[in-house]
Protein backbone atom coordinates (compact mmCIF):
# COMPACT_ATOMS: atom_id res chain seq x y z
CA UNK A 1 0.00 0.00 0.00
CA UNK A 2 2.69 2.44 0.98
CA UNK A 3 4.72 1.38 -2.02
CA UNK A 4 1.85 2.16 -4.35
CA UNK A 5 1.46 5.58 -2.86
CA UNK A 6 5.16 6.22 -3.23
CA UNK A 7 5.08 5.23 -6.89
CA UNK A 8 2.05 7.40 -7.47
CA UNK A 9 3.86 10.35 -5.93
CA UNK A 10 6.95 9.71 -7.96
CA UNK A 11 4.81 9.68 -11.08
CA UNK A 12 3.78 13.28 -10.61
CA UNK A 13 6.98 14.41 -8.96
CA UNK A 14 7.99 17.89 -9.98
CA UNK A 15 11.29 18.78 -11.55
CA UNK A 16 13.82 20.69 -9.52
CA UNK A 17 13.29 23.90 -11.45
CA UNK A 18 9.54 23.64 -11.05
CA UNK A 19 10.05 23.38 -7.31
CA UNK A 20 12.27 26.43 -7.40
CA UNK A 21 9.56 28.34 -9.21
CA UNK A 22 7.02 27.12 -6.69
CA UNK A 23 9.02 28.33 -3.71
CA UNK A 24 9.75 31.60 -5.50
CA UNK A 25 6.01 31.99 -6.08
CA UNK A 26 5.28 31.42 -2.39
CA UNK A 27 7.84 34.03 -1.40
CA UNK A 28 6.55 36.54 -3.94
CA UNK A 29 2.98 35.99 -2.85
CA UNK A 30 3.80 36.92 0.75
CA UNK A 31 5.45 40.19 -0.32
CA UNK A 32 2.75 41.14 -2.77
CA UNK A 33 -0.28 41.41 -0.54
CA UNK A 34 -1.13 43.63 2.38
CA UNK A 35 -3.83 43.24 5.01
CA UNK A 36 -7.00 45.19 4.18
CA UNK A 37 -10.26 45.42 6.05
CA UNK A 38 -11.16 42.02 7.42
CA UNK A 39 -8.70 40.20 5.12
CA UNK A 40 -5.39 39.53 6.83
CA UNK A 41 -2.32 37.86 5.40
CA UNK A 42 -3.35 34.65 7.19
CA UNK A 43 -5.67 34.09 4.26
CA UNK A 44 -2.61 33.23 2.20
CA UNK A 45 -1.74 30.35 4.54
CA UNK A 46 -2.94 27.22 2.79
CA UNK A 47 -4.40 24.15 4.43
CA UNK A 48 -3.64 20.70 3.01
CA UNK A 49 -6.55 20.69 0.61
CA UNK A 50 -5.71 24.13 -0.76
CA UNK A 51 -2.06 23.23 -1.14
CA UNK A 52 -2.62 19.90 -2.88
CA UNK A 53 -5.35 21.26 -5.16
CA UNK A 54 -3.17 24.26 -6.12
CA UNK A 55 -0.25 22.04 -7.00
CA UNK A 56 -2.47 20.01 -9.32
CA UNK A 57 -2.74 23.16 -11.47
CA UNK A 58 -6.18 22.42 -12.80
CA UNK A 59 -5.58 18.73 -13.42
CA UNK A 60 -7.26 16.05 -11.29
CA UNK A 61 -5.38 15.06 -8.17
CA UNK A 62 -4.48 11.41 -7.74
CA UNK A 63 -7.20 9.10 -6.48
CA UNK A 64 -5.31 8.62 -3.23
CA UNK A 65 -4.88 12.32 -2.66
CA UNK A 66 -8.55 12.92 -3.41
CA UNK A 67 -9.58 10.25 -0.92
CA UNK A 68 -7.34 11.81 1.74
CA UNK A 69 -8.82 15.26 1.17
CA UNK A 70 -12.38 13.97 1.24
CA UNK A 71 -11.80 11.96 4.40
CA UNK A 72 -10.22 14.87 6.24
CA UNK A 73 -12.94 17.28 5.19
CA UNK A 74 -15.77 14.88 5.96
CA UNK A 75 -14.52 14.79 9.53
CA UNK A 76 -15.02 18.56 9.83
CA UNK A 77 -18.77 18.58 9.22
CA UNK A 78 -20.80 19.51 12.30
CA UNK A 79 -24.42 18.55 11.90
CA UNK A 80 -26.95 20.57 13.93
CA UNK A 81 -27.35 19.35 17.48
CA UNK A 82 -31.13 19.62 17.23
CA UNK A 83 -31.14 17.22 14.28
CA UNK A 84 -33.09 19.68 12.13
CA UNK A 85 -31.33 20.24 8.83
CA UNK A 86 -33.98 22.12 6.87
CA UNK A 87 -34.69 25.78 7.67
CA UNK A 88 -36.55 28.59 5.90
CA UNK A 89 -36.23 28.63 2.10
CA UNK A 90 -37.23 32.31 1.93
CA UNK A 91 -34.14 33.29 3.84
CA UNK A 92 -32.21 30.76 1.79
CA UNK A 93 -33.23 32.56 -1.41
CA UNK A 94 -31.94 35.86 0.03
CA UNK A 95 -28.64 34.19 0.94
CA UNK A 96 -28.40 32.68 -2.53
CA UNK A 97 -28.75 36.16 -4.05
CA UNK A 98 -26.36 37.90 -1.65
CA UNK A 99 -22.88 38.27 -3.08
CA UNK A 100 -21.22 40.14 -0.28
CA UNK A 101 -19.24 38.74 2.60
CA UNK A 102 -15.60 38.26 3.59
CA UNK A 103 -14.17 40.61 0.94
CA UNK A 104 -11.80 43.22 2.33
CA UNK A 105 -14.26 45.81 1.09
CA UNK A 106 -17.20 44.26 2.96
CA UNK A 107 -18.47 45.36 6.34
CA UNK A 108 -17.27 42.64 8.77
CA UNK A 109 -20.66 42.92 10.50
CA UNK A 110 -22.29 41.63 7.34
CA UNK A 111 -24.23 40.81 5.37
CA UNK A 112 -22.58 37.59 4.29
CA UNK A 113 -24.25 35.54 1.59
CA UNK A 114 -23.80 32.26 -0.20
CA UNK A 115 -23.86 33.96 -3.63
CA UNK A 116 -25.17 30.66 -5.03
CA UNK A 117 -26.56 32.30 -8.19
CA UNK A 118 -23.05 33.36 -9.14
CA UNK A 119 -22.38 29.72 -10.07
CA UNK A 120 -25.70 27.85 -10.10
CA UNK A 121 -29.08 28.05 -11.75
CA UNK A 122 -31.64 27.68 -8.96
CA UNK A 123 -35.00 29.09 -10.00
CA UNK A 124 -36.70 30.00 -13.24
CA UNK A 125 -37.33 33.56 -12.13
CA UNK A 126 -33.65 34.50 -11.82
CA UNK A 127 -32.12 34.81 -15.28
CA UNK A 128 -28.77 36.05 -14.05
CA UNK A 129 -27.25 32.77 -12.89
CA UNK A 130 -23.78 31.40 -13.44
CA UNK A 131 -22.71 28.02 -14.78
CA UNK A 132 -19.52 27.22 -12.90
CA UNK A 133 -21.55 24.71 -10.89
CA UNK A 134 -24.37 22.47 -12.10
CA UNK A 135 -27.97 23.66 -12.33
CA UNK A 136 -29.79 23.06 -9.06
CA UNK A 137 -33.22 23.78 -10.48
CA UNK A 138 -35.64 21.13 -9.14
CA UNK A 139 -32.87 19.76 -6.93
CA UNK A 140 -35.31 18.63 -4.26
CA UNK A 141 -37.99 17.53 -6.68
CA UNK A 142 -35.54 15.13 -8.26
CA UNK A 143 -34.12 13.77 -5.01
CA UNK A 144 -36.88 13.90 -2.46
CA UNK A 145 -36.36 14.86 1.15
CA UNK A 146 -35.14 11.70 2.82
CA UNK A 147 -32.83 11.93 5.83
CA UNK A 148 -29.92 10.88 3.61
CA UNK A 149 -30.63 13.61 1.06
CA UNK A 150 -30.90 16.17 3.87
CA UNK A 151 -27.60 15.05 5.38
CA UNK A 152 -25.83 15.08 2.05
CA UNK A 153 -27.20 18.49 1.09
CA UNK A 154 -26.39 20.14 4.42
CA UNK A 155 -22.97 18.47 4.43
CA UNK A 156 -22.18 19.50 0.85
CA UNK A 157 -22.87 23.16 1.67
CA UNK A 158 -20.98 22.84 4.95
CA UNK A 159 -17.89 21.35 3.34
CA UNK A 160 -17.99 20.57 -0.36
CA UNK A 161 -14.59 18.92 -0.35
CA UNK A 162 -15.92 16.13 1.85
CA UNK A 163 -17.63 14.83 -1.28
CA UNK A 164 -15.50 16.19 -4.13
CA UNK A 165 -11.83 16.96 -3.54
CA UNK A 166 -10.70 20.26 -5.03
CA UNK A 167 -14.27 21.32 -5.72
CA UNK A 168 -14.67 24.91 -6.89
CA UNK A 169 -17.35 25.39 -4.25
CA UNK A 170 -16.45 27.17 -1.01
CA UNK A 171 -16.60 25.23 2.24
CA UNK A 172 -19.25 27.47 3.75
CA UNK A 173 -19.54 25.87 7.17
CA UNK A 174 -16.02 24.64 7.73
CA UNK A 175 -14.48 28.00 6.79
CA UNK A 176 -16.96 29.95 8.89
CA UNK A 177 -18.54 31.79 5.97
CA UNK A 178 -22.12 30.89 6.83
CA UNK A 179 -23.72 29.98 10.16
CA UNK A 180 -25.42 26.70 10.87
CA UNK A 181 -28.82 28.40 10.56
CA UNK A 182 -27.89 29.91 7.21
CA UNK A 183 -26.84 26.49 5.90
CA UNK A 184 -30.16 25.10 7.10
CA UNK A 185 -31.93 27.85 5.16
CA UNK A 186 -29.98 27.06 2.01
CA UNK A 187 -30.76 23.38 2.49
CA UNK A 188 -34.41 24.41 2.64
CA UNK A 189 -34.08 26.43 -0.55
CA UNK A 190 -32.91 23.26 -2.27
CA UNK A 191 -35.25 20.74 -0.63
CA UNK A 192 -38.47 22.41 0.51
CA UNK A 193 -41.28 21.48 -1.91
CA UNK A 194 -42.58 25.07 -1.57
CA UNK A 195 -39.23 26.57 -2.59
CA UNK A 196 -39.08 28.20 -6.03
CA UNK A 197 -36.22 25.79 -6.75
CA UNK A 198 -38.72 22.94 -6.87
CA UNK A 199 -41.46 24.57 -8.93
Amino acid at each position, binding site marked *: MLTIAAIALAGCATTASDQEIASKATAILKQSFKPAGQAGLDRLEQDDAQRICSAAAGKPVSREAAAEIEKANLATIRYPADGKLVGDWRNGEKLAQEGRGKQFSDDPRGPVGGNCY*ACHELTKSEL*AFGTIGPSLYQYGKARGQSADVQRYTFGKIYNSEAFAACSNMPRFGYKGILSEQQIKDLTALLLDPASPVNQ
Partner: protein
Amino acid sequence: MDGGRRAILRSAGQATLVALAAAAGLIKPEDARAEGWNKSAFDARSLGEALKGLAAGEPAQSKDIAFVQTPEIAENGAVVPIGVASALAKTEAIAILIEKNPNTLAAVFDIAPGTEAAVFTRVKMAQTSNVYALVKADGRYYIASKEIKVTLGGCGG
Protein backbone atom coordinates in the same frame (compact mmCIF):
# COMPACT_ATOMS: atom_id res chain seq x y z
CA MET B 1 -55.18 46.30 -34.20
CA ASP B 2 -56.47 49.60 -35.57
CA GLY B 3 -60.14 48.79 -35.12
CA GLY B 4 -59.52 47.55 -31.63
CA ARG B 5 -57.63 50.64 -30.72
CA ARG B 6 -60.30 52.94 -32.07
CA ALA B 7 -62.90 51.17 -29.98
CA ILE B 8 -60.86 51.70 -26.84
CA LEU B 9 -60.13 55.26 -27.79
CA ARG B 10 -63.78 56.12 -28.38
CA SER B 11 -64.72 54.93 -24.94
CA ALA B 12 -61.99 57.06 -23.46
CA GLY B 13 -63.06 60.13 -25.45
CA GLN B 14 -64.90 61.77 -22.62
CA ALA B 15 -62.04 61.44 -20.21
CA THR B 16 -59.84 63.01 -22.84
CA LEU B 17 -61.85 66.22 -22.93
CA VAL B 18 -61.60 66.61 -19.17
CA ALA B 19 -57.90 66.04 -19.26
CA LEU B 20 -57.54 68.51 -22.11
CA ALA B 21 -59.09 71.28 -20.08
CA ALA B 22 -56.81 70.55 -17.18
CA ALA B 23 -53.78 70.44 -19.40
CA ALA B 24 -54.66 73.74 -21.00
CA GLY B 25 -54.06 75.52 -17.71
CA LEU B 26 -50.67 73.94 -17.31
CA ILE B 27 -49.07 75.37 -20.39
CA LYS B 28 -46.12 77.37 -19.25
CA PRO B 29 -45.05 80.75 -20.54
CA GLU B 30 -41.95 80.75 -22.67
CA ASP B 31 -38.86 80.86 -20.49
CA ALA B 32 -37.04 84.12 -21.12
CA ARG B 33 -33.63 82.54 -20.66
CA ALA B 34 -31.83 81.03 -23.58
CA GLU B 35 -31.18 77.90 -21.59
CA GLY B 36 -34.28 76.72 -19.83
CA TRP B 37 -34.62 73.58 -17.80
CA ASN B 38 -38.10 72.21 -17.28
CA LYS B 39 -37.95 71.63 -13.54
CA SER B 40 -41.52 70.47 -13.12
CA ALA B 41 -41.12 67.85 -15.83
CA PHE B 42 -37.79 66.57 -14.50
CA ASP B 43 -39.10 66.51 -10.92
CA ALA B 44 -42.08 64.38 -11.94
CA ARG B 45 -42.25 61.01 -10.27
CA SER B 46 -44.70 59.31 -12.62
CA LEU B 47 -45.31 59.10 -16.33
CA GLY B 48 -48.55 61.09 -16.03
CA GLU B 49 -46.86 63.89 -14.07
CA ALA B 50 -43.94 64.00 -16.47
CA LEU B 51 -46.26 64.27 -19.48
CA LYS B 52 -48.07 67.09 -17.70
CA GLY B 53 -44.79 68.82 -16.99
CA LEU B 54 -43.94 68.59 -20.66
CA ALA B 55 -47.42 69.86 -21.58
CA ALA B 56 -47.68 66.76 -23.74
CA GLY B 57 -51.27 66.05 -22.76
CA GLU B 58 -52.25 62.63 -23.96
CA PRO B 59 -49.88 61.54 -26.66
CA ALA B 60 -51.00 59.12 -29.31
CA GLN B 61 -49.40 55.73 -29.63
CA SER B 62 -47.34 55.78 -32.80
CA LYS B 63 -45.65 53.13 -34.90
CA ASP B 64 -43.59 55.86 -36.51
CA ILE B 65 -41.41 56.04 -33.44
CA ALA B 66 -38.73 53.37 -33.24
CA PHE B 67 -36.18 52.37 -30.65
CA VAL B 68 -32.96 51.76 -32.52
CA GLN B 69 -29.76 50.24 -31.19
CA THR B 70 -31.66 49.72 -27.96
CA PRO B 71 -31.22 46.25 -26.46
CA GLU B 72 -34.02 44.50 -24.59
CA ILE B 73 -31.68 43.47 -21.81
CA ALA B 74 -29.13 45.75 -20.22
CA GLU B 75 -26.12 44.10 -18.69
CA ASN B 76 -25.86 47.00 -16.30
CA GLY B 77 -28.44 49.60 -15.34
CA ALA B 78 -25.83 52.35 -15.02
CA VAL B 79 -25.47 52.58 -18.77
CA VAL B 80 -28.40 51.65 -20.98
CA PRO B 81 -28.04 52.65 -24.62
CA ILE B 82 -31.20 54.20 -26.02
CA GLY B 83 -31.75 55.38 -29.57
CA VAL B 84 -35.01 56.98 -30.64
CA ALA B 85 -35.89 57.68 -34.25
CA SER B 86 -39.06 59.37 -35.41
CA ALA B 87 -40.51 59.03 -38.90
CA LEU B 88 -43.18 61.62 -38.08
CA ALA B 89 -43.08 64.68 -40.31
CA LYS B 90 -41.86 67.87 -38.69
CA THR B 91 -40.48 66.20 -35.58
CA GLU B 92 -39.57 69.03 -33.23
CA ALA B 93 -38.59 67.20 -30.08
CA ILE B 94 -37.85 63.77 -28.66
CA ALA B 95 -38.05 62.90 -24.97
CA ILE B 96 -37.00 59.72 -23.13
CA LEU B 97 -38.97 58.68 -20.06
CA ILE B 98 -38.31 55.73 -17.76
CA GLU B 99 -41.36 54.62 -15.88
CA LYS B 100 -39.73 53.05 -12.84
CA ASN B 101 -36.92 55.52 -12.29
CA PRO B 102 -37.22 57.79 -9.25
CA ASN B 103 -37.68 60.67 -11.69
CA THR B 104 -39.44 59.58 -14.84
CA LEU B 105 -38.08 62.04 -17.37
CA ALA B 106 -34.50 61.37 -18.45
CA ALA B 107 -33.88 63.70 -21.38
CA VAL B 108 -35.50 66.01 -23.88
CA PHE B 109 -33.95 66.83 -27.25
CA ASP B 110 -35.07 69.73 -29.42
CA ILE B 111 -34.58 68.82 -33.07
CA ALA B 112 -33.85 71.79 -35.30
CA PRO B 113 -35.19 71.79 -38.88
CA GLY B 114 -32.59 69.97 -40.98
CA THR B 115 -31.53 67.75 -38.10
CA GLU B 116 -32.45 64.07 -38.42
CA ALA B 117 -35.13 63.03 -35.97
CA ALA B 118 -32.92 60.40 -34.37
CA VAL B 119 -30.90 60.71 -31.18
CA PHE B 120 -28.69 58.23 -29.39
CA THR B 121 -27.70 58.50 -25.76
CA ARG B 122 -27.28 56.38 -22.64
CA VAL B 123 -29.35 56.45 -19.50
CA LYS B 124 -29.43 54.95 -16.03
CA MET B 125 -32.20 52.55 -15.13
CA ALA B 126 -32.87 51.70 -11.50
CA GLN B 127 -34.64 48.47 -12.46
CA THR B 128 -36.43 46.68 -15.28
CA SER B 129 -38.95 49.13 -16.68
CA ASN B 130 -40.94 50.36 -19.63
CA VAL B 131 -39.07 53.10 -21.43
CA TYR B 132 -41.13 55.66 -23.33
CA ALA B 133 -40.13 57.72 -26.32
CA LEU B 134 -42.27 60.84 -26.60
CA VAL B 135 -42.17 62.78 -29.84
CA LYS B 136 -43.53 66.21 -30.62
CA ALA B 137 -44.19 66.51 -34.34
CA ASP B 138 -45.97 69.37 -36.08
CA GLY B 139 -47.27 70.50 -32.71
CA ARG B 140 -48.70 67.15 -31.67
CA TYR B 141 -47.46 64.52 -29.27
CA TYR B 142 -46.88 60.84 -29.96
CA ILE B 143 -45.49 58.05 -27.85
CA ALA B 144 -44.01 54.56 -28.10
CA SER B 145 -42.60 52.23 -25.50
CA LYS B 146 -40.27 49.32 -25.00
CA GLU B 147 -39.54 47.20 -21.96
CA ILE B 148 -35.89 46.98 -21.04
CA LYS B 149 -34.77 44.38 -18.54
CA VAL B 150 -31.95 45.27 -16.21
CA THR B 151 -29.88 42.32 -15.06
CA LEU B 152 -27.27 41.77 -12.43
CA GLY B 153 -23.93 40.93 -13.94
CA GLY B 154 -20.54 40.24 -12.47
CA CYS B 155 -19.64 38.40 -9.34
CA GLY B 156 -22.34 39.87 -7.16
CA GLY B 157 -19.89 41.43 -4.73
